[in-house]
């Protein structure tokens, strides 16, 4: 009952009314972040400033030093660094990471529930969308606070789409048709094949998906009727049919010459530059891509040139969908409870609508709370507004399950094997199934 005794001690200390100067260092590590995401760290600094001022008014002297780091060797390097430093007992106090890490890190004891330190019913956390808050829950506890929201739309190049014989009205109707399952991935494949045949795009540029592993590929699994988790038992779900059909879809795309066999591993820079300038007919990405397309890649007419929808359904069993993969602020287990508490308060303050809006707009992510629509910076941003409307209501998240990482990894490796022609989709699925049933055992339901 460590926590309880600690807390009681804290209360006693508080009752005595201490007025000593307190120096606290807060380290923040953010994974998968670049310059545009600087507010993941900066907001904590701003929050620290606010907290210091609050303390000063109460007559206490609180000095918080915030140090940040976000240049890791990709997500792999970031997670390795966090895990090993947590093991070594010198983890950064706050980490910004995928919500998928909550399950394994919670069970390893690296992180503490944020709900131990902050009032979830009070401002500003009460303002955060409850479905987003749920994504940061695990085992009925609120471990983290969503840091941003996003979703992963399907994009198409409007000019190419028109040349394929569709009309402006068709474009306008696309989001709704996709949502209703009237325009499927198979329709897309037909269009893409046509685009290549008509010479509108080069071979291999009909469909131009993400070049590395990511939550995006779980969307295609869902498009073909796969579900990631069984709501009844809370176990991961491996849907053989959906998986096979999804792999087959990519293989068909390669066969139809709309997708390059060696597409995986394409340089991201090249990829961004190509999709932003209409070299590809269809592709998918993230809401934050808006910033890159209109910024570095210089697409000045985003809304005139690019359309976006949910990821279309693949077949009748599946559904149009999009995955939101919010990053969350997590508080790591520290020796000193007080540090955890300060860290949690900083996270809470950083979730203020005005602060979060800074991040949302700078990095082209979506709001985490209702009140952000009331912030001019946010409401004046067309992309934020439209994307929130078209995508967010239909977004689902990947499950917080300790073994989901292994599941997702295996799924992608299998896809890669089928896609590059190393194995047939059936072989690849069989191998993934074999591997997962061995590694996950009871945690997995195979359907």
């Amino acid at each position: 009952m460590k926590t309880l005794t600690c807390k009681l001690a804290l209360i006693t200390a508080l009752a005595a009314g201490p007025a000593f100067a307190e120096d606290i260092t807060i380290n923040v590590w953010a994974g998968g972040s670049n310059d545009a995401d600087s507010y993941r760290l900066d907001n904590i600094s701003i929050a620290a400033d606010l907290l210091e001022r609050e303390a000063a008014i109460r007559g206490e002297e609180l000095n918080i030093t915030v140090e940040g780091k976000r240049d890791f060797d990709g997500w792999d390097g970031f997670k390795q660094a966090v895990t090993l430093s947590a093991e070594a007992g010198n983890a950064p106090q706050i980490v910004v990471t995928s919500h998928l890490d909550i399950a394994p890190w919670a069970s390893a004891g690296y992180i503490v529930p944020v709900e131990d330190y902050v009032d979830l019913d009070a401002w500003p956390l009460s303002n955060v969308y409850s479905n987003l808050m749920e994504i940061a829950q695990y085992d009925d506890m609120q471990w983290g606070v969503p840091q941003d929201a996003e979703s992963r739309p399907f994009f198409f190049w409007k000019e190419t789409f028109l040349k394929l014989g569709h009309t402006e009205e068709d474009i306008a109707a696309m989001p709704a048709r996709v949502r209703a399952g009237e325009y499927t991935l198979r329709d897309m494949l037909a269009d893409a094949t046509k685009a290549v045949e008509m010479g509108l795009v080069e071979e291999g540029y009909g469909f131009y998906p993400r070049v590395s592993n990511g939550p995006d590929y779980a969307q295609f699994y869902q498009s073909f009727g796969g579900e990631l988790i069984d709501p009844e038992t809370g176990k991961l779900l491996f849907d053989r049919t959906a998986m096979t059909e999804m792999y087959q879809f990519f293989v068909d795309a390669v066969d139809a010459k709309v997708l390059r066999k060696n597409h995986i591993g394409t340089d991201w820079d090249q990829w961004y530059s190509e999709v932003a300038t209409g070299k590809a007919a269809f592709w998918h990405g993230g809401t934050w891509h808006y910033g890159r397309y209109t910024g570095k890649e210089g697409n000045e007419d985003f809304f005139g040139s690019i359309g976006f929808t949910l990821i279309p359904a693949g077949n009748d069993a599946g559904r149009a969908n999009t995955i939101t993969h919010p990053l969350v602020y997590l508080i790591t287990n520290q020796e000193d409870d007080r540090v955890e508490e300060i860290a949690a308060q900083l996270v809470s303050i950083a979730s203020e609508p005005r602060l979060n809006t800074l991040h949302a707009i700078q990095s082209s992510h979506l709001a985490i709370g209702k009140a952000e629509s009331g912030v001019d910076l946010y409401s004046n941003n067309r992309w934020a507004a439209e994307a929130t409307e078209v995508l967010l209501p239909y977004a689902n998240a990947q499950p917080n399950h300790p073994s989901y990482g292994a599941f997702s990894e295996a799924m992608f490796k299998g896809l890669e094997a089928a896609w590059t022609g190393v194995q047939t989709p059936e072989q690849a699925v069989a191998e993934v199934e074999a591997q997962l049933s061995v590694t996950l055992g009871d945690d997995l339901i195979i359907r």
Partner: protein
Amino acid sequence: MNKQKLLGAAFISPALIAVIVFFLVPVILTVVFSFTNMSTSTGILGGEYQLTQSDLDDLSGAGVSDEAITLLQGAGYAMTDESLTAFETEFGKTRADELAQKFPDATFDSRRDMERALKELRTDPLRSTRERKAAAELFRQSILGQRYETKDDFANAVSALNISAADTQPLTEVAYTGWTFTTQNFELLWQLPATWRYAINTVIYVSLTLVFNVTLGLFLALSTFFLPDRIAQTFRTIWFLPRILPPVLYVMMWQWMTWDQGFISSLLAPLGVDRIDWMRHSAVHGWTVLVLINGFVGASLGMILFSSSLRAIPQTQFYAAQVDGAGRWQQIRYVILPQMRWPILFITSYQTLSLLTSFEYILLSTDGGPGRQTEVWALAAYHTALSNYGGNLEYGLGAAYALALVIIGIILSAIYLRFFNFRELVAKPRIEQ
């Protein structure tokens, strides 16, 4: 113990300590870990005891009685006499009375509900969040989600819920968050199809690179041997650089050569060749580039060693061969190569080991792609244990992979030991005192 022995001990001990700490201990640890299910979720340094909501589903399977499960499930937060008394001592009678009056005998499912109840205090409200949190803890009955550092703490908490001693044992097992000993890693290695692919990849990688390495190294040494000094020196410098250039930089040069917009593509584009990623286009491309990257580095080691053993051959032998009318090729065939047997053997065995176990260049270039085609055993160990996109670090399984390499390493170096003239090596020091 005479002076010489003392000096010997003093001289060897710093190195010995370093070697024990960073070689011997890790080897032993690797062996131990390979028999555990250690992963991110279990942590490395032992575990604690925690029952979670999701554990409840597994409990009946683990042999816990339904009765106990109900007790665990139903606990939550409750206004019991003890908790109210505790609350009274901490927060005063006024508050305790108001609470007891407002929520007589109430129970709450979650802490959030409990906190909401505490907010209802009107006469002397608990204003700070921190106080409410602490107060809510006093009413906690449930042990779900609570972490206990020791087994005893956990057992006490369980018995406080009136759960029978018979159920405590299986409960403890489920609740333990740390790693346990198992042989499942080796079963897994045996069963996973990927294992065999990695093994085959490793064989392909090592043998191809080795042949390339040794042949090229030998060729470089021989050709520069026959050339005038200045020219030879230039070529030696060109070929020595890959060895001393930092791998990150060296591989970046190759990336630049091979990417879609890179040198090769740009050079061939005007000839109508499609721009492709020459490193990741297919398995063949991947292997070719990998062999080249590693081969160029390895060749330089061969070149240096072969060159120095070439220089060690007395010049008179070449004069004699020339007098005997041997051409350059015959000199190589009959004078040089027979004397190069030893260095070639040395390089071959040395490089076999280092190729088997080093993955730095692969990690930096293809990282196993495309499609796991170039994932070699050592890289798989690294990926499994320390670096993957999901952040799911399986130390136990990774250690099992590593253990295989450690064993191969020991066997190979034992063979390697035979190449050395060991008896001469351990010849007794000639000063005896």
